């Protein structure tokens, strides 16, 4: 591990890589702070740029943007009551009231410190957990991978925000989309209707871009995005010993909670922030003060979302299963660069994996250094109208989609999923469940069929092997517990 860490440091400190890191940080800060551009969208937009870079530079770019955007969502959440990214939703609860009390600098300072600390703790866990999980996963065979995919799919329960049937329909759609094209095991064409372009299947990137980026632009096109309020001059104070003493335990607890939640495939940093906020309120002596602008109310979600974002990288790098929508895009980027995340990545590409770790660590530390100058610069950038951003995002989406396979057909796929995403989003449909199905579908199918081939059709192979049995048992629990809770709630009502 130490050798890998030193290799990562060596790689990162090449002038080009440092330059890319700093540039990506600024892009991530900007995208995260501007409401209307999520981290997922930013990574999608920059995906075509990554094609032209070598693998290490490309992943420094994408992962740095990811980490930086999770942090900077707090700026507009605290100053304008408009979370820059979904991960910063819970930060509004106490961040904005503190600004209203006339303490925006203190609120930002708490946010910066908590984010950086949460991010560093999250990255340290990422560095130590990923190799352990990956070496454990080296023992996996088809039944275990199938069980893992099923466990990943049960996350639908938490992604469905109360509407489990809609969530299952989303997963079903995603799983079905993944079956279109040539069957990888027998070479048979499935649901292609003689269309040449469909033989290669429907790629993940056009589906992602359509569902998340295009649908978001369509939705935002009907809103007014200019933040009317003038940005006041803010003096941010990051290190305030009184405040640090007050929030240090909250930061540590929330970071641990954040990484534990972030590691679960499909859950992500937004859920981590929300749960951490409510847990901080539950265990606090001043629970009645939550929501009125107290430091703990900012520290808890910010430490958790940054730690959770790093946690979401663990299943991606160790098992090849994305922990969130953004990590699903990063998974797509790995595939585009001819790499397959998973246990073998640690063995085959240790230089790349450790450079990603070190750059994530560097970004989270540099947040403290660069956040202040960025906030000062941000007041000027806030004036960029959506009428310029919107068209640029659409062109970037088109370019990003086309560049994956140099296919105009993929742009049609993107457009169709943009329409589907827009209308489903209007009815509050959990869009991420579709992605879950598309990403996990091929793994689940191939491993399911391979496992049955191994056992000559005996389905008990999934339950008699210990790891597979435990994973399927966990999957069953993950499915049953929310269902039982809902029935209990229904009976109470």
């Amino acid at each position, binding site marked *: 591990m130490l050798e890998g860490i030193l290799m990562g440091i060596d790689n990162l400190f090449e002038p080009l890589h440092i330059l890319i890191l700093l540039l990506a940080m600024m892009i991530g800060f900007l995208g995260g702070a501007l409401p209307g551009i999520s981290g997922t969208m930013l990574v999608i937009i920059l995906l*075509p*740029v990554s*094609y*032209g870079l070598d693998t290490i530079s490309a992943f420094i770019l994408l992962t740095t943007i990811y980490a930086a955007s999770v942090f900077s969502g707090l700026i507009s959440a605290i100053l304008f009551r408009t979370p820059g990214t979904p991960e910063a939703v819970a930060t509004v609860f106490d961040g904005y009231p503190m600004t209203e009390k006339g303490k925006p600098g203190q609120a930002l300072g708490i946010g910066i410190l908590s984010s950086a600390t949460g991010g560093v703790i999250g990255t340290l866990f990422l560095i130590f957990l990923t190799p352990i999980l990956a070496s454990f996963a080296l023992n996996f065979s088809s039944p275990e991978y199938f069980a893992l995919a099923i466990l990943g799919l049960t996350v639908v329960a938490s992604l469905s925000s109360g509407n489990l*049937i*809609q969530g*299952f*329909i989303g997963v*079903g*759609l995603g*799983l*079905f989309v993944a*079956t279109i094209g040539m*069957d990888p*095991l*027998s070479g*048979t064409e*499935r*649901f292609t209707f003689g269309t040449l372009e469909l033989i290669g299947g429907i790629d993940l990137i056009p589906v992602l871009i359509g569902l998340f980026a*295009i649908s978001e*632009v*369509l*939705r935002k*096109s*009907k809103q007014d995005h200019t933040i009317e309020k003038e940005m006041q001059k803010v003096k941010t104070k990051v290190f305030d010993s009184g405040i640090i003493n007050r929030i240090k335990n909250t930061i540590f607890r929330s970071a641990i909670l954040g990484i534990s939640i972030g590691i679960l495939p499909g859950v992500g940093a937004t859920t981590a922030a929300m749960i951490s906020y409510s847990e901080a309120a539950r265990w606090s002596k001043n629970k009645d003060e939550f929501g009125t602008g107290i430091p703990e109310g900012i520290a808890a979600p910010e430490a958790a979302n940054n730690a959770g974002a790093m946690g979401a990288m663990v299943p991606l790098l160790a098992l090849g299963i994305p922990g969130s929508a953004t990590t699903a895009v990063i998974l797509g980027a790995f595939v585009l660069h001819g790499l397959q995340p998973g246990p073998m990545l640690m063995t085959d590409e240790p230089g790349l994996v450790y450079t990603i770790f070190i750059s994530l660590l560097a970004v989270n530390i540099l947040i403290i250094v660069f956040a202040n100058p960025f906030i000062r610069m941000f007041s000027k950038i806030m004036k960029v*109208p*959506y*009428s*310029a951003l*919107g*068209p*640029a995002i*659409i*062109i970037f989406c*088109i*370019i990003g989609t*086309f*560049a994956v396979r*140099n296919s*105009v057909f993929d*742009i*049609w796929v993107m*457009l169709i999923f*943009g*329409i589907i995403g*827009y209308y*489903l989003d*209007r*009815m509050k*449909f959990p869009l991420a469940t579709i992605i879950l199905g598309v990403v996990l*579908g091929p793994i689940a*199918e191939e491993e*399911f*069929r*391979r496992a*049955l*081939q191994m056992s*000559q*059709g005996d389905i008990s192979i999934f339950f008699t092997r210990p790891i597979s049995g435990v994973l399927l048992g966990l999957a069953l629990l993950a499915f049953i517990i929310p269902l039982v809770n809902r029935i209990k709630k229904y009976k109470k009502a």
Partner: protein
Amino acid sequence: MRANYLLAIITIVVSAFFLVVAFQMPETNSTTTIGPMGWPIMILLFSLVMGVLLLLNTWLKGRKKTELIYNDIQSSDKNEVTKEKFHVKNRHFYILVSIAIYVLLLPILGFIIVTPFLFFFLAWLLGMGRLLKVAAITIVSNIVFVVLFIHLLGIPFPRGIGIFRSLSFLIY
């Protein structure tokens, strides 16, 4: 509520349609225990069941909440008289149509010709203001796209056909 009905019906119809297609596919001599259509059939049956469940669930909820919804509709009807201009209200539709036209024209006219038109239209539609400003931003942003994606990253965008193809060779 109506959206849920629609979603349930679409799910049922689509699942049933593809199930029919899947069952009509001849199972090839597969080396695996489960053939190429086995997994899709399982998923489609699952989706079909979910579609039926959503339909039933929506119907049951609808029976309980009829009065509430009626009140909601009445109050939202009042809000429907919005101040939004027609083109603002339908912006999403125009954006979709413009992207569709763009994709249709892309292989014919080529990336260099159609992209500025799409950018210009979208910027105008989203309310950038004066046409001169829209044109200037369109030109600048398209120069950035060409330099970044064509010259630096070498993405082989469609050149179009005939004269448009020849024209594109002047640029890349």
